[in-house]
């Protein structure tokens, strides 16, 4: 019988809860629809595929609060609720809904694991009681409700101790304490972070092996272990910040089975129905183990396990929640065996975290119990060395310079892996490194082997044996060229002569035991090619965006997936290249074939050759993909859309400004400077403040507003050589507006404009914005005309984002991004027309945009940024040219006020309760009259407003953030919040249905 099922998503991306829930959520919703059910989704994350109408029947971009979801339940009257797909956020909401009697009142059945089980898994004290009952060992610990109890506990077990606040995600508010001062601070933050004011404090077992199992359980009680994983970093580093291998590498069979059996016992006792993650610690010198924690839901690890094995956990978990048993479900990879089996891998998988420290050089890089990574990459190969190397290639970062290896070893930082490599280069022994890091010798041997090969290449240059060995162990041609002191082309040519070439192999869940129908492929130099090219007339390769990082989030995965969808509709066969295990684009069911590999020219060239690709799409994978265009064109690969020359003409400041001058389009009169000296010379021609922006960066990284020459010199000295030329623009104070458009070379399609709340100078990714914009008519007309002129002038075909600045009557062009931008999903969803679809039709099918009608936009959307201050509490999140937010949310209303009120619905009404806010800007709004240090300790304190640049202002903002408050550092954002207060209590609104097929090609 068809049911109406409410699904709760995980909301905007923050550290600890990222794109993995888009993947899981999308899979889950599709599984529900496959079974004939109607999906009502609530998730205020516009950047996801999950909130697309291809995935859910009704989409609510509404706040994830008890009040808001209750209103949706009241409005929709769903039969059932599925909360296991939306991470901790959704699980907590389900517990709240049950607690408030909402589910009972409206007769909503909770699918999957029961609330009682969720609580038993998540509530530290209940969990510990259960473990005692099962005779499963847990580290000595106590539930702590205040500082005094913490001190008493430490007197018993000694330092260091680990604090884990109850019901939080990504270790929020948790950490490790080595002394009383740290302990007191940890307790204050932890108790504030926990919704039930509880932390569990446990004796540290740092140094143990950390092992995870991904378990599935059905209502018959059948359990299977999809995958186990071993952290390269021993216990002490959050698993989200650990380098992880799958399957475990250093466990004997009896250890492996002992931990697997323990996991089954726990999952069975919890009566989980669906997926469950169990984390364990194993003494490296005995069979003693501890259970660390369980997550009775799909998780980041389950997404990783799905990609590592090919077993679709979220999809199967959803079906189990609907009442199926594992042996009733077919394993979709083989197509003829059942879901009740355990995948056998015949390759090694490495997950490597992607940290935001390139954006935050001043952040604390030490890793601990609190997750700091924004995303991750995964690599597959037949050797561990190759998997490590490919993972590093996937990160899309420059090899870091390690000044002092010892700074990173004993206490792990994000650079530890690189420091280990450097230590071996410097001649340190494996014993020494093991002593420092406690990393297992097995992993150290592999890292050492990589360095041995580097040395061999340096000594021998190119030789058959060494190049063969290097490729076998995952060296890219670029790396080989670097160590052998030759050009990359030379390496490739040498390989061709020596017949050292890549092969492709399949991920099939069963180590080739059964015939498989999978289209999930990796590249290796170890073994024969077993992949037949797809048989098709037209093949498209879509380049993905790699790991989630600040400035390049899940929105680019949305674009890639939509591109695949549209190409398929046009009859193309699609091939995806990406390496982010958390995403929908790397679901092997998304494209016709998935290549899970680093995004490099070497890999792309091989795929194009292997598959005889007709078109390579570089505009749907963020800056990562578009950055490939030049190299690919030089390698004579067939690039879709405009040529690299056009891309260059748009991105090269001098060429671009020259074109704008020719077109009579105003722009800020910046200059390109090739060197530090030139920049300082050029700066003298202008008046400060200046905006200094480096080239080839993501999310405004390294972009700064400088007030004087000294600040400019400082900024330039920090700049890496590859980020030259830098552009110096005079800083104009004004408002920002942007458009996402599609051009067909002649005509332009602009569904609407997006206006920023904060003034220009705040990175567009960090600003709140309103779509459609409410601008003076003349401004809007200028924006449209200028856009049209740019498209026509460059004969631009495809998707493009243009940012404008306006002040009084004047409109200036700021910059152009010749690719799908961050805001494409928002505009597509609210305007009901997929921009990616139009762009694909233009590029791949010759669509003429002249007759495409622009839909009426009936609602207003407000986009807002989210800063993961819980993960990096030492940072001052003031807004500027350098993007700092990790994700974005969106709320919809009939008016701007309604949408805005939803965005701020978690905040108190400060007109009624001024004591909740502390306001230090020039405004009529009154806040608390207490001194700051007193106010910040009050229970009601929740909004802090300060836009000053002083050290004291910074201290206060950071303190407020540490206490989990909302901090406003821009007066216009605060103003928007104040103005929205009267519109609170607006009803939930669904996202308008998207038109997919409605456009008629001429």
């Amino acid at each position, binding site marked *: 019988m068809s049911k109406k099922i409410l699904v709760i998503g995980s909301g905007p991306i923050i550290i600890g809860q990222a794109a993995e829930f888009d993947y899981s959520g999308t899979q889950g919703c599709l599984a529900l629809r496959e079974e004939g059910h109607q999906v009502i989704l609530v998730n205020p994350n516009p950047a996801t595929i999950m909130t697309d109408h291809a995935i859910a029947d009704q989409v609510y971009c509404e706040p994830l609060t008890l009040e808001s979801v209750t209103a949706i339940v009241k409005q929709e009257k769903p039969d059932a609720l599925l909360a296991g797909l939306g991470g901790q956020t959704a699980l907590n909401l389900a517990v709240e809904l049950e607690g408030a009697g909402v589910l009972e009142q409206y007769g909503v059945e909770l699918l999957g694991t029961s609330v009682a089980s969720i609580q038993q898994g998540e509530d530290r004290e209940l969990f510990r009681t259960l473990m005692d009952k099962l005779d499963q060992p847990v580290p000595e610990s106590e539930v702590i409700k205040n500082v005094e109890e913490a001190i008493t506990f430490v007197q018993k077990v000694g330092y260091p101790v680990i604090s884990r606040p109850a019901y939080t995600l990504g270790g929020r508010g948790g950490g490790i304490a080595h002394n009383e001062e740290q302990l007191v601070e940890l307790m204050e933050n932890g108790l504030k972070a926990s919704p039930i004011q509880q932390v569990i404090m446990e004796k540290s077992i740092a140094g143990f092996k950390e092992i995870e199992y991904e378990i599935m359980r059905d209502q*018959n*009680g*059948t*359990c*299977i*272990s999809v995958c186990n994983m071993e952290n390269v970093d021993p216990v002490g580093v959050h698993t989200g910040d650990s380098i992880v291998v799958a*399957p*475990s*590498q*250093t*466990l*004997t*069979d*009896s250890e*492996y*089975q002992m931990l*697997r*059996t323990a996991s*089954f016992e726990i999952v069975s006792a919890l009566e989980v129905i669906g997926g469950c993650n169990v984390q364990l610690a194993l003494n*490296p*010198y*005995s069979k003693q183990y501890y259970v660390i924690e369980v997550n009775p839901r799909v998780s980041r690890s389950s997404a990783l396990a799905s990609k590592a094995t090919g077993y679709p956990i979220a999809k199967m978990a959803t079906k189990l929640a609907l009442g199926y*048993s*594992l*042996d009733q479900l077919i394993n979709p990879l083989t197509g003829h*065996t*059942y879901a*009740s*089996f*355990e*995948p*056998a*891998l*015949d*390759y*090694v998988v490495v997950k490597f975290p992607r940290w935001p420290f390139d954006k935050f050089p001043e952040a604390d890089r030490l890793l601990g119990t609190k997750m700091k990574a924004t995303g991750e990459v995964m690599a597959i190969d*037949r*050797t*561990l060395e190759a998997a490590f190397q490919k993972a590093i290639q996937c990160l899309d970062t420059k090899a870091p310079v390690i000044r002092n290896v010892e700074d990173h070893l004993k206490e792990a930082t994000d650079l530890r892996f690189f420091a280990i490599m450097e230590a071996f280069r410097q001649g340190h022994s494996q014993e020494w490194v093991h002593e420092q890091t406690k990393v*297992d*010798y*097995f992993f150290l*041997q592999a890292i050492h082997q990589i360095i041995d090969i580097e040395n061999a290449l340096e000594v021998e240059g190119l030789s058959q044996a060494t190049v063969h060995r290097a490729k076998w162990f995952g060296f890219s041609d670029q790396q080989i060229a670097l160590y052998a002191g030759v050009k990359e082309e030379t390496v490739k040519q040498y390989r061709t002569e020596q017949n050292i070439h890549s092969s492709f*192999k399949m991920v099939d869940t*069963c*180590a*080739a*035991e*059964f*015939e498989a129908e999978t289209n999930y492929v990796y590249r290796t130099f*170890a*073994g*024969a090619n*077993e992949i037949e090219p797809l048989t098709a007339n037209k093949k498209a390769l879509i380049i993905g965006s790699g790991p989630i990082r600040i400035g390049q989030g899940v929105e680019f995965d949305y674009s890639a997936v939509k591109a695949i969808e549209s190409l398929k509709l046009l009859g193309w066969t699609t091939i995806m290249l990406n390496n982010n295990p958390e995403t929908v684009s790397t679901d092997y069911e998304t494209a016709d074939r998935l290549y899970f590999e680093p995004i490099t020219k070497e890999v792309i060239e091989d795929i194009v050759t292997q598959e005889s690709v007709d078109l390579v799409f570089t505009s749907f994978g963020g800056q990562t993909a578009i950055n490939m265009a030049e190299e690919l064109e030089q390698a004579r690969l067939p690039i879709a859309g405009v040529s690299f020359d056009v891309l260059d003409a748009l991105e090269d400041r001098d060429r671009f400004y020259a074109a704008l001058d020719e077109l009579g389009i105003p722009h800020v009169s910046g200059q390109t400077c090739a060197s530090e000296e030139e920049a300082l010379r050029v700066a003298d021609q202008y008046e400060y403040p200046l905006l200094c922006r480096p080239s080839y960066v993501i999310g405004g990284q390294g972009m700064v507003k400088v007030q004087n020459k000294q600040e400019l010199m400082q900024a330039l000295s920090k700049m890496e050589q590859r980020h030259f030329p830098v552009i110096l623009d005079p800083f104009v104070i004004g408002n920002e507006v942007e458009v996402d458009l599609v051009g067909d070379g002649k005509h332009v399609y602009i569904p609407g404009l997006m206006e920023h709340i904060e003034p220009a100078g705040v990175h567009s990714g960090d600003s709140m914005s309103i779509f459609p914009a409410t601008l003076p008519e003349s401004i809007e007309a200028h924006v449209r005309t200028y856009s049209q002129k740019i498209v026509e002038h460059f004969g631009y075909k495809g998707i493009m984002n243009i940012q404008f600045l306006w002040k009084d009557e004047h409109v200036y062009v700021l910059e152009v991004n010749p690719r799908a931008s961050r805001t494409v999903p928002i505009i597509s969803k609210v305007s009901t027309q997929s921009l990616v679809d139009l762009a694909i039709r233009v590029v791949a099918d010759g669509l003429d945009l002249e007759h495409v009608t622009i839909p009426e936009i009936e609602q207003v959307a407000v986009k807002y940024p989210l800063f993961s201050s819980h993960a990096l509490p030492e940072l001052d999140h003031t807004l500027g040219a350098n993007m700092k937010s990790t994700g974005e949310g969106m709320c919809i209303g009939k008016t701007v006020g309604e949408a805005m009120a939803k965005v701020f619905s978690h905040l108190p009404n400060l007109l009624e309760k001024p004591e909740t806010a502390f306001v230090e800007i020039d405004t009529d709004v009154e806040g608390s009259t207490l001194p700051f240090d007193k106010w910040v300790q009050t229970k009601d304190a929740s909004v802090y407003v300060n836009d000053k640049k002083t050290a004291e202002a910074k201290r206060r903002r950071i303190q407020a953030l540490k206490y989990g408050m909302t901090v406003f550092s821009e007066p216009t954002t605060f103003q928007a919040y104040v103005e929205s207060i009267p519109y609170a209590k607006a009803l939930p609104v669904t996202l308008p249905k998207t038109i997919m097929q409605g456009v008629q090609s001429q």
Partner: protein
Amino acid sequence: MKGYLCLQDGQTFEGKASAHWKQPIQGEIVFFTGMTGYQEVLTDPSYKDQIVVFTYPLIGNYGVNEQDDESDEIQVSGVIMFHCADKASHYAATSSLKDYLEKQEVPFLTGIDTRQVTKAIRKGGSHQAVLSSQHVNTIAPAKTGQMQKVQGRQVETYGSGKMHIVLIDFGWKKSILNALLSYDAKVTVVPFTKIKELEGTDFDAVVLSNGPGNPKDAESYLPQLKSITDRYPTFGICMGHQVISLAYGAETEKLPFGHRGANHPVKDIKTGKVFISSQNHNYVVKASSLADTPLSTRFYNVNDDTVEGIVHDQKPIMTAQFHPEAHPGPSDAEWLFDDFFTLIQSKKEEGVYV
């Protein structure tokens, strides 16, 4: 030094040979898909005369230790690996896998694309294969009678518990003995060709062990075996299961390439539950052949519906094609031993054996 794996169908794979290659080695080539447990596999007598391919690419990571042997020596005749660790990384390791194989003069090849070999086995069915330092075109007929070779020489007794169990030896694994001993039992291990020596011995139940090769190699002993299983609570494991089936009139047949690994789903008809089992067998009991026997299927394989265990309609006889004693692989079916001992207990209380 280069070495070659030559399959019966003419396919040859080149790899790096181990030091001990006295002469070409021939055996049936089989693949094991478990990602851990190589030491248990190598020493499991059920692998006698076989050349084992490990599908997981990294073998030997944790070396070999003193606890995980399933018999006193390596039983396989050759090993094919993608990569074998030079060093062991584990606190309990007493040797690296390489040294262990070299010391026992078991030839092995590394650097082989084991996935390609596995596919060849899957497609062509079970093969004879030769490990050699050069290409080999002639392959002798398959050897038989492995069971006779691996069974012990004499009757041996272990433990001193209350319950006395006879373990009939077709090539028993230590884990079966250990599982039985953990139930406070005394276990007498009897080679299957020497069942007569049991005369005059008083015991409570009988377990028929695992073993290599074709169950029909034991055909001439079936009447003797049946005379015991007719009278005592009986548990047959793997080969034991097949032999019991033959003794009561069922038929066995060879699978195309066998089941070997730690991830085979088995469904229990009695409870409706599915569990994951450890498996290692080439032959199966033909489901259709059970029709005219007093035996019924209790367990079957979820993937290919083959028989995974039977019960006798009247007598206290139970069997498993898989390995409830695990090692390598999951111990999800360990409860079968509980069931067996409960069965023995209840029969003991009844005081009469049927």
